[in-house]
Structures are given as structure tokens and as C-alpha cells.
């Protein structure tokens, strides 16, 4: 069993959910998270707007141009059996890949056990 954690763009959640459903992965847990990646976001556009004398430098502008600002993202957690991991990852990548930094990351973690609360079934039966 594997836990697949995908961090994707906020506005891609509906398309991703739809694609997962089509490909036989209906069970998903979603979280709203804040995050940043390896690449620093380029805030020069915002800075030039502020320093262009049209707008007074505001606390918002300063907060936006801070180096370590976090961006809202969606985190999806999906538990699948080992054989389906590849298919799941291909599905997520094909929907979310735009070729730009910020498209997201996918992590695959090992999972020891799963239990279905309703029946008490364990292991792959519980998925």
C-alpha cells in the first residue's frame, strides 16, 4: 500500500478530481495548504507597480514582495495498492502539467496498514 500526496494548483482541483474519477480513483482527501517551492517567486512586477509612484508603498505591497511568501495550494492524499501507483501518478501529471514552475509535486510514501472504520477490515481490503 502506498500513500500518494500531491500538491497542486488551487484552480486545478476540479479537473483533477474529475480525471481521478474517470480513471478509477474516487477516494481522495483534500486539504487547503500554503506553500512555497525551490524557486523564488518573481515579484518585480508588483514592486515596479509600487515604486512607479502611482501607488503608495503599502504594508500589503511589502508583504507581497517578501522573499519567503507562501502561496495557496491544494494537497491531495490518496491511498492505493502498489500496482496502481504508476497509473495514479500519470493521471495527476497529465492533468496538471502546464510546464511552469508551481505546477506542483507528488510524493509517494509507504503505508503500513489501513483500517475501514465501518467494518474493521484491514490491509488492502480496507481500500
Amino acid at each position, binding site marked *: 500500500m*502506498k500513500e500518494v500526496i*500531491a*500538491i*497542486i494548483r488551487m484552480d486545478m482541483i476540479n479537473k483533477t478530481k474529475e480525471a481521478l474519477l474517470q480513471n478509477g480513483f474516487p477516494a481522495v482527501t483534500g*486539504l487547503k*495548504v*500554503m*506553500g*512555497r*517551492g*525551490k524557486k*523564488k517567486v518573481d515579484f518585480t512586477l508588483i514592486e515596479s507597480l509600487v515604486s512607479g509612484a502611482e501607488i503608495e508603498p503599502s504594508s500589503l505591497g511589502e508583504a507581497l514582495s517578501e*522573499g*519567503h511568501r*507562501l502561496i495557496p*495550494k491544494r*494537497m491531495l492524499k490518496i491511498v492505493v495498492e502498489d500496482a496502481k*501507483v504508476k497509473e495514479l*501518478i500519470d493521471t*495527476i*501529471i497529465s492533468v*496538471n*502539467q*502546464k*510546464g*511552469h*514552475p*508551481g*505546477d*506542483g*509535486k*507528488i*510524493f*509517494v*510514501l*509507504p503505508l503500513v496498514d489501513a483500517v475501514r472504520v465501518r467494518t474493521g477490515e484491514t490491509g488492502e481490503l480496507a481500500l
Partner: protein
Amino acid sequence: MLMIKAIIRPEKVGIVLSELSDGGFPAVTKVDVMGRGKQKGVRVGEVFYDEIPKVMLIMVVRDEDKDDVIKIIMKNARTGTKAAFGDGKIFVTPVEEVYTISSGSNEL
């Protein structure tokens, strides 16, 4: 690769994030969570709180970077000089595969 999940005080997030960034680990995900620890929560006067707001920072790093990241979090998430209950916990779990969606490559 390893996933580091650190549960820390909300007021320490700013300093921890900027120190991580300065230390060369900019990539991080932040989630607001509620929780309690071994002390079963906190009592303030008559009221007992067992759902204390915390922030979970999630990072995936190379095995050799683990100690550096943990050291940075430890140093900056502690309160006062002696540290206190409720400063948080750090959990480390293995990550088998990593994919970058923008390029489709399976590296960090």
C-alpha cells in the same frame, strides 16, 4: 528521500520559515492544525483546552539534509532559553518517490 513533518507554535512560523529559507531549504508546505500532546492540553484557570492551534510544516528533503533541517527547526521553534511544553514535535517518514509535475521528472 525523507518527509519531515514539524508541528510548531503558530507564532514561531515566521522565524522558522525565514531561517529555513536562509539555510537553503525554501520549499515547504504549511497546514493549520489543532492538536494536543502528552500533557493532554492546557488548563487556563477553570477551562481546559485539549485542541490547541498549531501549524504543521511539511518538507521533503534529501537524506543527507535531514539533520540540517531538523537543527534549524529545533533552534528557532523553541520558546525562551529553556524551551517549554508545547514547542512541538518533528516526525520523519520515508518517501519512496518524488515527481515534479511541471517537468514530469522524478526528482526533487
